[in-house]
């Protein structure tokens, strides 16, 4: 036998044991001794000692235990350890200190006691974490990363009606709410059950995680707020094929709308957390005041119909959007016909229904809208329609004069679809024949009556157009 047969094994054992002990010690040091928060607490102890005014305070400062601190709020299901580093967060003497020792700005914690609210209910972020990177959690696996300071006011809306808060305290949020109404976002997006259906409903936009956004084309930071900002600048650049118009917003406006989007959270918070004004706001939603037609028009209609005074060519829809406040049109439609069009929409076009079941508008609101449209022109007494003539002659004439814009099958090309069931339901013979006869000012629809189309030919056209009438429902006289 030559040498000790277990010599190589002894070497492996010794080397591996040294590595094991070394890494155990290193891990113990890293996990327990050299953690950042211990350093922060030691510095804070020094600050406390400098600020102490008497011996008792100095003794307290000197004996400040270095330990993990946390705020547990069972009602909100949160455990926030932020106060492990932010020790001076509710100490008014810490106004002159750098972060993380500084006191919370604007004395907000005087009203929102840390013990009751914790931190993450307003700031988001990973409350359980004990180091800044993981607390911020932007690049870590956490659904709600820390909101940057410029967006933090978004979460005020969880418990407050932003408009009831002191002026200037939630400026961006209020501006965002106003922009949302003014820019007609509701025309395509539902909020609280009201709005169009071309875009997604926005009720819980602030509680979405980043994985619920289409981020294929999103450059840079993958946070929700960056997504909102980029998307407001160029919707189709972020979501391919998006129909959303580019709203031409300034940087502060983009920020304000982002704050508003982040504020949309349907959280089931305990009643004790809700400010009285929030409860008022919720009550007002259930018991709306008398509707204002002009405001409703701007909120729900203007995004597509604009001022409504002219027919508008929409590049993304690739068709004309009717000028619904055009006096020539309003004059020929009676109130019932307008209300029917608003309630039911135009199936097959981009115009959704706005009745209680579809767009969420109440009957009172539809009536208010009709009243607002009516301000353009009073309803005229329409000349009596000619009797319906011969449909085959009408068909030939339609193909020659009308099909270019309305489509040979009446399904509409650049002009409205005449074969549309809601149109057939809402439009009277008198309305159709008057439109053919007199045309529609400020739109491409010419006055065929002045171009030599006779009353009997209008009768033939009427007969042909009415062939598209749905059989089941009775037609208005």
């Amino acid at each position, binding site marked *: *036998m030559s040498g000790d*047969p*277990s010599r*190589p*094994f*002894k070497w*492996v*054992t010794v*080397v*591996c*044991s040294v*590595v*094991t002990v070394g*890494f*155990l010690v*290193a*891990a*113990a040091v890293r*996990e*327990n001794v050299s953690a950042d928060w211990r350093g922060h607490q030691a510095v804070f102890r020094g600050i406390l000692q400098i600020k102490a005014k008497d011996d008792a305070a100095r003794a307290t400062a000197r004996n400040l235990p270095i330990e*993990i601190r946390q705020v547990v709020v069972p009602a909100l299901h949160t*455990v926030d*350890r932020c106060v492990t580093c932010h020790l001076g967060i509710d100490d008014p003497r810490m106004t002159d200190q750098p972060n993380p020792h500084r006191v919370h700005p604007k004395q907000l914690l005087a009203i929102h006691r840390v013990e009751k609210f914790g931190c993450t209910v307003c700031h988001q972020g*990973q409350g*359980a*974490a*004990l180091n800044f990177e*993981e607390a911020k959690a932007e690049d870590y*696996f*956490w*659904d709600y990363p820390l909101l940057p300071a410029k967006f933090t006011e978004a979460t005020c809306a969880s418990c407050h009606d932003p408009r009831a808060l002191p002026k200037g305290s939630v400026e961006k949020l209020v501006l965002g709410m106003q922009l949302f109404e003014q820019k007609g976002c509701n025309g395509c997006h539902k909020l609280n059950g009201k709005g169009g259906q071309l875009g997604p409903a926005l009720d819980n936009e602030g509680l979405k*995680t980043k*994985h*619920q*956004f*289409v*981020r*294929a084309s*999103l450059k840079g930071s*993958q946070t929700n707020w960056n997504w909102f900002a980029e998307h407001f600048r160029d919707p189709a650049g972020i979501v391919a094929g998006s129909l959303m118009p580019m709203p031409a917003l300034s940087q502060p406006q983009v920020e304000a709308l982002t704050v508003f989007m982040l504020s949309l959270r349907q959280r089931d918070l305990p009643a004790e957390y809700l400010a009285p004004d929030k409860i008022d706001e919720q009550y007002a939603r259930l018991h709306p005041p008398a509707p204002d037609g002009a405001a409703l028009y701007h909120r729900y209609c203007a995004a597509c119909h604009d001022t409504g005074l002219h027919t508008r060519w929409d590049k993304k829809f690739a068709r004309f959007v009717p000028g619904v406040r055009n006096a020539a049109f309003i004059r020929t439609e009676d109130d019932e016909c307008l209300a029917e069009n608003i309630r039911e929409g135009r199936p097959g076009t981009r115009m959704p229904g706005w009745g209680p079941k579809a767009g969420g508008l109440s009957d009172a609101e539809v009536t208010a809208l009709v009243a607002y449209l009516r301000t353009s022109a009073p309803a005229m007494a329409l000349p009596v329609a000619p009797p319906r003539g011969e449909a085959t002659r009408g068909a030939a004439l339609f193909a020659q004069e009308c099909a270019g814009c309305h489509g040979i099958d009446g399904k509409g090309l650049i002009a409205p679809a005449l074969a549309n069931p809601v149109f057939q339901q809402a439009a009277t013979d008198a309305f159709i024949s008057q439109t053919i006869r007199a045309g529609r000012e400020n739109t491409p629809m010419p006055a065929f009556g002045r171009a030599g189309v006779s009353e009997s030919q209008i009768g033939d056209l009427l007969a042909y157009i009415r062939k598209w009438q749905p059989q089941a429902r009775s037609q208005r006289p």
Partner: protein
Amino acid sequence: MTPDTKTPIREFLENLKQSPRHIRESAMRNGKAPETDRERSQSTFHNLFLHMQSVRTDRRSLRFAYTFGLGLILTASFVVLTITGILLMVYYKPGVELAYNSVKDIHFVVPAGRFIRNIHRWSAHLMVLAVFLHMARVFYTGSYKRPREFNWLIGLALLVFTLGLSFTGYLLPWDQLAYWAVTIGANIASSPREVTDAIGITAWFDPGGFQKQLLLGANYVGQESLIRFYVLHVAVLPLLISAFMGLHFWRVRKDGGLSRDESKPAPPARIGDRDVEVFAPTKTYGLMAVVRGRTPVVGRAPEGSVTSWPNLMWAELAAFMFTIAVTLVLSYFFDAPLKEMANPAIPENPAKAPWYFLGLQELVSYSAFMGGVGIPSIVLIGLGLIPYLDRDPRGVGVWFGGPAGRRTFWQSLIYGLTSVLALLAVTVNLGWLRTWFPTIPQIAIIILNPATVIVAMYSAWSLWVLRRTGSIRMSAVALFTCFLAGFVVLTAMGSIFRGPNWHFYWWPSQWPTH
């Protein structure tokens, strides 16, 4: 010594003074280093290490290049997993509302909790990896042959238990990774539905649905599944694996220790200055009768062997410490993953099973039944039959059974890799039957898909090797090597090259973010 010379109080004090010695003696049984032959033999009978190991170990069994210490690495990982697992159990709460946050707390505030969880995770990966390598080692050295056939089957059971332990542990953090990996796993369990659907009998006979429900305790991954996986992970499977490990070790010992080449005689023993041919027993005196056969025989004789204590002890200690050191280094630098909390509303894309199942998931993407049930069953049954089909006693204890086997290994490796890569290239670039004939019935795809084609190609190769060499052993080496190549390539395919919607990507950085 008479009673009057020793008062009770004096006796008490005397016993107290002597108690350290008595404790030491009672613990060690022999009390001191053996000096006489009688004491030496007693130290053997009274020593736990020597109770489990034979007294002498063949020097060939200690060769690192023969075993790579894989069995010991497995044992060591299991010990490390048990210890860290018990520590984790102290803080872990198996409820869907609590689990994730308790793991976060282990990560953030439990002293060294993050490190302990990392160790648990890395040892688990190491154990799964080592169990595959151990099986390959035992196969290629022919160690499954008589009398070790049954231990090969026990080993297969241990492989299944190891995968089961790892898979059940995967769900416990209750994060997105866990939730969707187990959802995939449960869908694999329900894959017999593909066949029952194709022949239209699912409404009456639904083994897939039954398996899925048995696994999850519900139709989807939820609280029932979590508690089920928890019980399997911390109680059922560890007990099973411990029992089978005991059986496995016992059989290793009783089947004659580690396999070695018995055809080559060990160098003769030397007594004084003479070589002595030592009598090699064919009969053994068992405890109850004279028995024939090899049962407790350890090698032929003392030649070529060394005392197990301390030589084998050092070898085993080295493997243990090596395992622990590797695990600690990995755990220090790489944290165990923990994604967002499980959210059934937001599917992960791609949702991937744990890495060792990604080869199967790749096959599942062709045919759920074949990938989930068909191929795994064929492979397990095939592996189990190996020692009963290859009964040629030659070549035990020699890597690949000699130069011919080595050649077969390399040829089969090249064949196995080329054919699976070619097949994947076709599938990725040109699609499969469904792309070419959109209306083809599903049953045709179940029968003819890349998974079955690769199995057919490998079997054909193995049969050809059998015809050419006339050796079942060679054909087994060919088949095993091919499957190993296929397993590695498919696992790599599933882990690295499959992105969202299971599309092919050369690199994860090319994945679209949504």
